[in-house]
Structure formats: C-alpha cells, structure tokens
C-alpha cells in the first residue's frame, strides 16, 4: 500500500485531496499518516472529511480513521461509478476543494456524471468558483473531456448557501498538452462583487484597480448580487490570453479595508504580468494533476510554490512519471513524462 507522510511539505489538505484523486484514478489504496502533525488541532478536520466522504461515495471506498482528529487515514477505492451526485458542504469546507478531489477521477470514468455541490462558492481559503470556470476547466477541456459548470447561486463565507452543477463527459483517453506561453491578452475584466454590503466598497476597489493597473472603463464593473444570501465581497481580475486565462481574486473580510482587498488581487496580477510564464502559481498547482493523468505535458509558470513541489511528490507515488521542475525567475518550466 502506498504510504504517505502527511507532514511533508506544507502538509494539510492538499496532500490528502491529491491522494484521494490519484487513488480513485489509479485504483490503488493508500494510507496517510501524521495528518496535520504539529498543529494545535492535529488530524483530520471537517473540511477534509467532506472531501473523503465525497471521494468514498463516488468509488465505494472502504476507509479507516475517517473521523475528526484522526491522524491516520486508510482509503481503499473500488470502481469509480459515474452518475448523479449531490454533496452539501458546510462553511468549514469548500465546494471547490471537494470538486478538485473528485473531478480528476470523473474525467476518465465510463459514463457521464453530474455533481451538484451546495455550500460556499467563494471562500477565502479556497479557489473561487470563477477561477475554476475560467482558468482551470478550459485547460482540462483541452485534454479531451467536456466539463460544464452552471452556477445557480453564489455562496459567500461563512453563510454559504451557494449552489452549482458540474457535468462531466469523460474522454476515452486524455491527450497530453503543452502550455509554454500565455500568448497576447485579448480581453480583460475587473469585477467587484458585492452582496448585502454597501456598494461603495466595490467602487473603492475599482478605483484602486484603476490606480494600479491598466483597465479601460468598459472593462470595469461593480456587480451587486441579491442580498438574500450572506454578506460578501470580492474583487476579481480576469485576463483572457491566446492560450490560457488567469483569474486573480481578493476577498473582502471584516476588518480589512476595500483598498487592501483590491491590493491582494492586484499584487498577484502584477506579479503574473511581470513574468513570462503562462500561468500563475495557483493554476500551476492545479494543472499538475490532470497533466499527470494525461501521461505527460509541459507548462510554464511565473512561480513554483512549496504546494506545487509537494503535489509533484504525491503524484510520483501513484504514477510512474518523472516530474522535472526547472525554476527560473521569469518563467519556471515543469515537464512531466513517463518513466
């Protein structure tokens, strides 16, 4: 059985989610020890359990240690069963993180799958749904599968209450792909989303964008959502390039002023704009796994994080692949190929 040390790298949920996805795909059981070792609350937390539960449901896995505070989890997958699923995820978890754990296995399942996810869609501790739709999904679609995401309602942290449906039509075989250049930017947008909060917050964020980035008036928008969901605010910067799209997000939070919210998105965008790698660090992190499933590929990124390195190590435990990371200041290159 594959044994993973949960304390390696930055540890935490990323290792677990990658391991769940890889285990379902490769049909190999695994055991993960030292889950969140050294934290004040060690072991599995609810957000991890929601991911385990969703993965277990889709492949009828047998598990050991699937409980709060457990520092060891054993996961023994069976056949991935396509079909209709619905998972409700509390504010402690995140719908997008759960989706990342189960989506890779659905890309090669032997039938269509429809997953309804309810809960938070915009959670400061997880990639927002907009990032998945615009940046992540298009790249996966390039490998052959058809994926759609229909967002019914947004759900902000902590009130949640969001809902979206993901439909996956698998490909027989995923084809490797290359993403070495982003190409010229042909469209961009800055959207300040406001829900049940003064519109003024969004306006200040947009002002900040105008001050620090180059945007035309037609590319700027303050979007007010119906106030019946909880209060929420985020600033989203979208760049559509010839070969890929990027989304950078800043989340509004109590006690953080609008300018600071805008700055966190703007800083990420500026860093990416200044580099020449195709994707930013978050997308790089996410692309590793589907590319590994396709059996190979290459891409460039503006930054390699500890997360990405840890992810590469976990992938290598399940699949006979070489993952080479060539770190450079402007554009780091990651190559994956069969051993």
């Amino acid at each position, binding site marked *: 059985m594959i044994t993973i040390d949960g304390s390696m790298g930055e540890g935490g949920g990323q290792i677990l989610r990658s391991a769940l996805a890889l285990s379902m795909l490769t049909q190999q059981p695994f055991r993960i020890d030292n889950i969140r070792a050294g934290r004040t609350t060690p072991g599995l937390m609810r957000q991890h359990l929601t991911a385990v539960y969703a993965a277990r449901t889709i492949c009828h896995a047998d598990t050991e240690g699937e409980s*709060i505070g457990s520092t060891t989890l054993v996961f023994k997958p069976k056949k991935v069963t396509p079909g209709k699923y619905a998972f409700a995820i*509390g*504010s402690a978890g995140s719908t997008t993180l759960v989706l990342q754990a189960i989506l890779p296995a659905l890309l090669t399942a032997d039938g269509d799958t429809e997953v309804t996810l309810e809960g938070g869609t915009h959670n400061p501790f997880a990639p927002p749904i907009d990032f998945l739709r615009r940046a992540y999904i298009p790249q996966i679609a390039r490998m052959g599968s058809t994926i759609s995401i229909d967002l019914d309602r947004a759900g902000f*942290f*902590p*009130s949640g209450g969001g809902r979206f449906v993901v439909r996956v039509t698998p490909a027989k075989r995923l084809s490797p792909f290359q993403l070495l250049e982003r190409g010229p930017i042909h469209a961009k947008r800055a959207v300040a989303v406001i*829900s049940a909060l003064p519109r003024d917050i969004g306006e200040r964020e947009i002002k900040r964008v105008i001050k620090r980035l180059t945007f035309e008036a037609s590319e700027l928008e303050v979007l007010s959502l119906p106030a019946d969901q909880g209060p929420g605010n985020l600033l989203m910067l979208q760049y559509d390039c010839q070969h890929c799209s990027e989304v950078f997000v800043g989340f509004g939070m109590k006690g953080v002023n609008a300018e600071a919210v805008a700055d966190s998105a703007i800083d990420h965008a500026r860093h990416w704009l200044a580099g020449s790698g195709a994707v930013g660090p978050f997308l790089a992190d996410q692309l590793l796994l589907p590319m590994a499933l396709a059996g190979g590929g290459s891409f460039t990124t503006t930054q390699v994080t500890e997360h990405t390195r840890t992810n590469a190590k976990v992938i290598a435990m399940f699949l006979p692949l070489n993952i080479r990371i060539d770190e450079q200041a402007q554009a780091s290159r990651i190559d994956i190929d069969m051993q």
Partner: protein
Amino acid sequence: MKRKPLVVLGLLGPMLDNGRGAERWERWRPTVALCQHEELLVDRFELLYQPRFTTLAKIVSTDIPRISPETDVRLHEVAIDDAWDFAAVYGALHDFARSYRFIPEREDYLVHITTGSHVSQICLFLLTESRYLPARLVQTAPPSRERGMTGSFSIIDLDLSKYDALASRFQQQKVEGKSFLKGGIQTRSKAFNAMIDQIEQVATSSRSPLLLMGPTGAGKSQLARRIYELKKSRRQVEGKLVEVNCATLRGDGAMSALFGHVRGAFTGANTDRSGLLRAADGGVLFLDEIGELGLDEQAMLLRAIEERRFLPHGSDREVKSEFQLIAGTNAKLQSRVREGRFREDLLARINLWSFTLPALCDRREDIEPNIDYELERYALETGDRVVLNKEAREAFLRFARSPGALWTGNFRDLTAAITRMATLASGGRISVGIVSSEIARLESSWKQDADLDAGVSTVDQLHELLDESAIAGIDPFDRVQLAEVVRVCRKSRTLSEAGRLLFSASRLERRSVNDADRLKKYLARFGLRFESIVRQQS
C-alpha cells in the same frame, strides 16, 4: 472505528443568537457558530426555544444546515415565559431532561451553556451536575481577531475530579434541604437535628419506604409533607402526596379505599374507584397509624410495595402504581407483630429506614423556635401579626420548659396554645395575663389526660414490675398511687425530675427540698428502683 454521533442540547439565545437580515452573518451567533468549528462535528442539535422566539428559532434552524449540512436541527418549544424565574426555568428544563430519550451508550451529548439567561445557564449546569443531563458542558466564546465568525469553544466534563471543588459548593443545597425538612425552624436539639440530617440523606437518595415513629402530635404528618415537598423540589417525585390515617380505614371500605375496585365488585359498587394507591402514582403515599391496617390490607400493601402492582377489588387485572411509601405509627409495631396483629414481613419491608420523632417534652430546647414558627404561621394564615412581649415570652417559656409541662399532645398542644393566645391577643400583643390563663388551661387538660391514663394503666404497669403475689400484698388504695408514681418516673429523664414533678405542690412551701431522696425511699418500700422502672420500659 465508528465514533458516536454528537448531540448538542442548547437554548436559543434571544440576544446572542438574534439577527434577521443578511448582517446576521457578520455577527457571532453562538448557536450557529458552535456548528461551524472545523474540529467539532455536531450531528444533531436539539434547540430549545421559548414560544415568544419562534421566528428566531426558525431562522437559526435554517441557518445551521446552511453552514453545517451534517447537522440535523430539531426544535423544541419549552414553556418558559420569564427566563429569569428560577423555578419556572428549572421546571421546564427539568421536564425536557426527563422526557428526552438519552442513549449515552450510543450518542455523545454536549450541553451548550453560553446562550440564554444566567438563570437558564445555572439550571443547565445544575441539571448536568446532577446527571439529569448525561452530558458534558460546552462553552463558546466570540472570535477575538481571527477571520470568520466562528470563535472558540471549550468542553467541560463535570465528571472529572478537578471539578470536585465546584461540586462541593452544591453541598450548600443540601443544607437548605435540611432546613426545609425542619420547616425552616432553627431547631436546637442535637438529637433531632442529627435525625433530620439522616432523613434528608435518605429521602433524597432513596425510594425505599420510610417509617416515622413517635407519639401523636410529634409532627409525623408535617415531616411526611415536608419530605414530599423536598423530593418534589428535587424533581424526585412528580405525582401527588396522598395522606391517609389508617385508623379511619376500618372494615369493608378499607380495601377499596386503598386499592380501588371495579364496577360491580360488590353491592353498591356502581362505578370504578381507582383508590388511594393509584392516586399516589409517581408521588408519595403517607399511611399514618399503619399499625391500624387490617391483615388483608397489609398483605396487599406489601405486594404493592414490592412489585409496584396490585389487584383492585373485584378486578382480574393488575394495575401499576409507583409511589414512595412513608408510614407513620405511634405504636410499637414489634409488639403488634408478636400479638399477630401486624405482618412481620411488612414490618421488615417498611422498617429499613425508621426514625423516631421525639416527644416535645424531650425537645424542650426546641420549644422557643417552634413558638416563633407558630406565630409566623398564625400571621400567614390570618394576616394578623402577633408578638409575645418580653415578659410574656419569658413566663411562657419558663413554664413550657419546666418538667411540670407534660406536653402530652406534643406539637398539637403547642400549636393550639399559640393559636389560642394569638386569637385572644388584643392589639397584636400577647400579655402576661393571657399567658397565665393559657398555662392554667394547659395544666388542667394535662391533668385530665393523666387521670385518664392512670385509670387505664394501673394494673398493666404494675404487672410489668412486680409479680402477682407482690401486687396482692399492696392495698388497692396504694396501688393507684404507686401506678401514678411509676407513670411519672417513666416520663422523666432523671430521678430528680420525677421527684420535682411528684412533689411539685409541697416543694414551694418547704425551705430545703430533696424530692429525689423522698421518691427513692418511697420506691424502696416496694422493692423498686428508678433505674429499673425506666429500663423495664424499653
């Protein structure tokens, strides 16, 4: 490795959990936040709410599954009108605790004590501490500076020994229980107080029958009533107190009065009658003068105590009744057993906890507090506050504590005396004059009692002390005198006390007195000694 589902019981906080619009998500709401912790999965939330806050309860109960879909929220309306009324809150929460089906072997319980009034927090604590709620406590706190509105929580297990110090504070409640049993009277008799301590302990920790012995008027009924009130206040009984004097249950009616009958059981039984035992279901049955109960009824009662079931007259179907029995008697039941008038097995069953209430003349130090208690009671019943002025009080106490005050009717005599004096008091003050005439009234009534006693018991008493031939050698004229002397000796604690009583008239005129010696010499004439007379008695 299956963990037990976690169930939280909590009160909806009208203040802390409040919030209607979207901005409620920006507030820390303890009930919602408790379900939001990463390291605590609440499988079920039993949310108690006051009827006034139904709308808020609905909001909270729909918000919880939104942030925690794993949590099943169940709403319980509890009838609390005033969240600061201790008795009402405790009662309502206690009712909930009693009716809720706890399965501690299959579920883990937490009681959330952060929401609700301080009164309800204290009540929840008490119910948990007394294990009515087989749970640990959970306290929540708002976020300090962290992100989100979750805050923190801490779990407190009262079973851990570090909370012993805390638990010992609740010993105080016990002290209150004792004072309760004494009707709030500051009794001074050490023996009596020690007995009350024991009764309090037994009454609050056991459901076994209690036997209260003691002379008429010693306060058996009052004590039974207070035991019932104590158990009720501790939520150990829910039902009624049913009191009956068995001496009134003679003949054919006894059986159906106690155990009930069905229609047509006998001529005249036109309707069903449920009987006193069933009326006491879930409560307390006080059978005074239990020695007067017929043998058939005794047999049935024994079965009802042991099996908690019995057969109503004429019925072929047993009925159930769970009651706590308190029996009272002024007779020595052991001698009735010897005479075949009382079942030995029933005595054994009710004799497990027996307490002898001393006569008032054996608790003379308690007379004063009881006078105050009686005056208080009089004021409560009539609305007239009456006081004994200093001289009158001293005069009455001097008499009441003296050996000459026989108090044959015990507290009944004292209650009657105070009631008479209070009624006669003009302007709310009992004067020395009223006291003097009351003293005269009491003495004369005791004298009549004594004359009556002496008349009936002469021969019996002498037979216990002397043999046939010795009695035959005493003139009938002297027998009556000796019998009275024996009777007084037996009521006295010492030879001197008996002497003072027997020579009470002449002692006022004599310069030097040695009544004890005089009595000793008198007894010696019949070959008797004070110690042997008293010992023979017990």
